């Protein structure tokens, strides 16, 4: 507080000393001027020796001057904030010149010509000053420290452990009556410092421009604020302390809203604040709360329109593993998990045993140098027999395209937190575009499904096309041309298992094997589940006129898990059984070329061969060898699809185990 240069002008001592001051300055100038020629003539060292007595004199007089002139700024500046206020303030250990630059002339200071310029608070508080340079209040309102801290001279040390001063400070201008009546505010006022105050969301010295303008910086701000909510509400220790679930965030991220948000497209979906509001966050029981059951319809209506009130029964972040609270979700999830487990444990085992048998057998023949003889004369053996019609082949190509389309656009949403998902989505131009492509692919698949359904119906109920021994629709449904399982499949399956273990020959098959029937029917039944749930999620508002909102939660689980089932089944089981099995490796182009050699038909599907002979239809199925263009297309498209599927499976496996 004692500042040597601050001098009071009206005291007589002061006036006398001012005169002395001037004299001393003049004397110093004189001495310095006189020393120049000395230095030039006799060198610096000797020069200093010569002027040393003078320097000593000046030093003594200046010291006396300074110690005598030690004056107090508060003699003039004697307001409360500079005297008692300052001595009790947080800066009381500092002197006036810690913050005010000393001035050159007291007279000029007194006559208001020389102001002791303020130095930046950032000289000491450099970290805050750096943060503050990006602050909204600085950039747009040119606020300085004192504009929020007010009377900076009597600034008290902040009470540690209370957030209330922050609320008080901000609400001086931002009279946010909504926040003040919110749950967060009520908790803070009760002394709960876990609860959020202004600065927890908006920052204190680092209030960014976009923190305050949702409209101008929608994407940044939405992303930013949701992260703020998440940072506390996923803190398990803090949430436990406050009897809240820290898993709410996790459950939210399992929903469509949460997944898209996590992918980085927060503007398109409901973030935390869209349902819970920004400042007026109240508990569910409060009748004014936006999430109170009475207000839910209105709340959902902020984004959705034309829905039945039961639309609002959708659970925004349910714990589908909670049997008591969400039984329907729980059992849907359990069902899907078991469906996956059973399907894969059966088919992977089947494929593995099959592969082992074929590989071992091939190795045995190779070792013994046996080349299997054709069961037919050469000319007959190389005859091509039609297996699939042109229409069927085109249908499969379309199926592959739409399937990959659905997988590539849908799976990033399922595994939203992985880097590959984010990269894929950004390549597609965002979650919105991906959704659009997903729907286009879905339309193709639904079209194929409906057409197949029509083909099936017209096959079963066709008139006058019955072949020998086939009458009525039941015979057709379970006949050799049908893809419906029949009495032959079980013995064939048993025969296969016996063959796997070397207990018999490979059984003979008809037109369709049991695994081919499963491939077909699995896709067919899967279409009801995945298509039904997909359409529900596509138009949830319209769907709400049929069933309540919580069905959408089930639809999400089912759609997602069924997709995983389909993808893994096609890319592992179907790929192995049809293409990667050593007898066909790397691929069987039959679905693209539509034809097989008569030898293959006889060797593998002898029941069908015999039937065709019996019915005298072999000749009408004879077809030319495929053209070179067809072969090239079949190989390229087939192999590309295979590779794509295998790569995708590897990515999925990596995701399961490492991501």
């Amino acid at each position, binding site marked *: 507080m004692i500042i040597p240069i601050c001098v009071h002008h009206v005291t007589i001592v002061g006036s006398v000393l001012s005169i002395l001051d001037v004299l001393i300055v003049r004397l110093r100038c004189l001495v310095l001027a006189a020393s120049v020629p000395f230095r030039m003539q006799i060198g610096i060292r000797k020069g200093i020796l010569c002027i040393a007595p003078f320097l000593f004199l000046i030093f003594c007089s200046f010291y006396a001057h300074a110690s005598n002139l030690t004056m107090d700024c508060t003699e003039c500046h004697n307001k409360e904030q500079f005297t008692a206020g300052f001595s009790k303030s947080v800066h009381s250990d500092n002197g006036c010149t810690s913050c005010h630059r000393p001035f050159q002339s007291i007279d000029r200071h007194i006559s208001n010509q020389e102001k002791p310029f303020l130095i930046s608070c950032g000289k000491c508080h450099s970290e805050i000053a750096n943060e503050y340079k990006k602050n909204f209040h600085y950039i*747009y*309102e040119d*606020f300085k420290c004192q504009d929020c801290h007010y009377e900076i001279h009597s600034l008290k040390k902040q009470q540690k452990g209370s957030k209330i001063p922050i609320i008080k400070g901000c609400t001086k201008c*931002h009279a946010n009556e909504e926040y003040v009546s919110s749950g967060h505010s009520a908790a803070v006022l009760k002394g709960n410092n876990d609860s959020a105050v202004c600065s927890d969301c908006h920052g204190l010295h680092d209030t960014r421009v976009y923190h305050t303008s949702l409209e101008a910086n929608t994407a940044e701000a939405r992303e930013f604020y949701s992260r703020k909510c998440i940072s506390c509400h996923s803190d398990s220790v803090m949430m436990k302390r406050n009897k809240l679930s820290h898993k709410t965030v996790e459950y939210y991220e399992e929903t469509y809203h949460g997944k898209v948000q996590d992918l980085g497209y927060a503007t398109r979906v409901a973030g935390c604040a869209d349902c819970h509001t920004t400042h007026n966050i109240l508990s569910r029981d409060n009748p004014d709360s936006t999430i109170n059951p009475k207000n839910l319809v209105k709340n959902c209506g902020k984004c959705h329109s034309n829905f039945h009130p039961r639309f609002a029964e959708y659970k925004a972040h349910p714990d589908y593993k909670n049997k008591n609270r969400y039984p329907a979700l729980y059992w849907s999830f359990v069902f899907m998990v078991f469906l996956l487990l059973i399907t894969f444990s059966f088919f992977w085992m089947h494929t593995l045993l099959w592969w082992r048998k074929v590989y071992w057998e091939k190795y045995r023949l190779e070792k013994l140098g046996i080349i299997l003889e054709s069961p037919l004369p050469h000319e007959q053996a190389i005859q091509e027999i039609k297996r699939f019609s042109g229409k069927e082949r085109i249908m499969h190509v379309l199926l592959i395209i739409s399937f990959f389309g659905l997988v590539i656009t849908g799976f990033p949403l399922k595994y939203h937190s992985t880097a590959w998902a984010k990269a894929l989505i950004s390549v597609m131009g965002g979650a919105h575009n991906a959704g659009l492509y997903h729907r286009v692919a879905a339309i193709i698949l639904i079209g194929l499904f409906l057409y197949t359904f029509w083909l099936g119906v017209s096959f079963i109920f066709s008139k006058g096309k019955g072949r020998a021994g086939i009458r009525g629709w039941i015979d057709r449904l379970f006949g050799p041309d049908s893809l419906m399982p029949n009495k032959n499949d079980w013995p064939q399956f048993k025969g296969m298992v016996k063959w796997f273990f070397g207990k018999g020959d490979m059984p003979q098959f008809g037109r369709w094997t049991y695994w081919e029937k499963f491939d077909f029917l699995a896709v067919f039944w899967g279409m009801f589940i995945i298509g039904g749930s997909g359409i529900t999620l596509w138009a949830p508002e319209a769907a709400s006129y049929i069933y309540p909102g919580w069905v959408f939660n089930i639809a999400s689980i089912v759609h997602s898990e069924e997709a995983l089932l389909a993808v893994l089944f096609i890319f592992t089981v179907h790929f192995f059984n049809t293409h990667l099995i050593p007898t066909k490796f790397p691929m069987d182009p039959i679905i693209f070329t539509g034809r097989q050699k008569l030898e293959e038909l006889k060797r593998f599907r002898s029941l069908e061969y015999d039937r065709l002979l019996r019915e005298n239809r072999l000749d009408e199925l004879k077809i030319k060898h495929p053209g070179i263009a067809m072969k090239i297309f079949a190989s390229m498209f087939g192999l590309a699809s295979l590779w794509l599927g295998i790569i995708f499976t590897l990515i999925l496996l990596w995701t399961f185990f490492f991501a």
Partner: protein
Amino acid sequence: MPFKYPKLCIISILLLFSLIALPAKAGSPRYINPEETMRLIKENKALTVDTMSHIECMDHRIPGSICIALEEFDKDAPSLMKDKKRTTVFYCESKNCRRAGEVYQKALAMGYEDIYILKGGLPEWKSAGYEVETIKRVRRTPVVSIKINQLEKMKAEKKNLLILDVRTEDMFKKGHIEGAMNMPMYMLHKKFHSIPGSRPIIVVDENGKRSFIVCSFLINNGFKDVQRLFGGMAFKEKQDRIR
């Protein structure tokens, strides 16, 4: 013979190019970034012109700037910007810089040649880390901002409430809150004495960004009951549309 008159060809091509270039020069203004502006200022080449109101300009401006409000540019430019060939940078206090843009067009019409708009305005200047200078600071005071529904209530409760619209005369003419008094910001420092001090005041601006400093200015000058409208007229109009 297409190249029989090569000079004519070149001249006509140049003419064609200049035709393309001309509207571009007149239509799209030239922008300059803060770094380049700073370089020009240091080399003493550029004059910077703050196009905000006098109050705002005196409160904070790029060091060495002159203050010419958009509304007073026609009147003040001839005396304050005598050298029509000097590099001049106009700026205002929003990222879009509408005011600086309007001044730019005016200056262009008045024959100023080497002129620019500061890209991103003062916010960008500050974000780039450059200082501003203060000539006469408006001490900031706590000012309550009220929302439009509260304003309706207040109008009913306080009969002598004064709604002070600080937008330009043109904007005021196009539409304003019923009973509002117009006092454009650029003349506020001269004419604030004519505002009745005894009445409670609600300050209304364009978009809520400038009313704060107006309120602080008024409170510093002895006005007691001064509040501002949240979001300004833009927010009010938006709310009206939603309703």
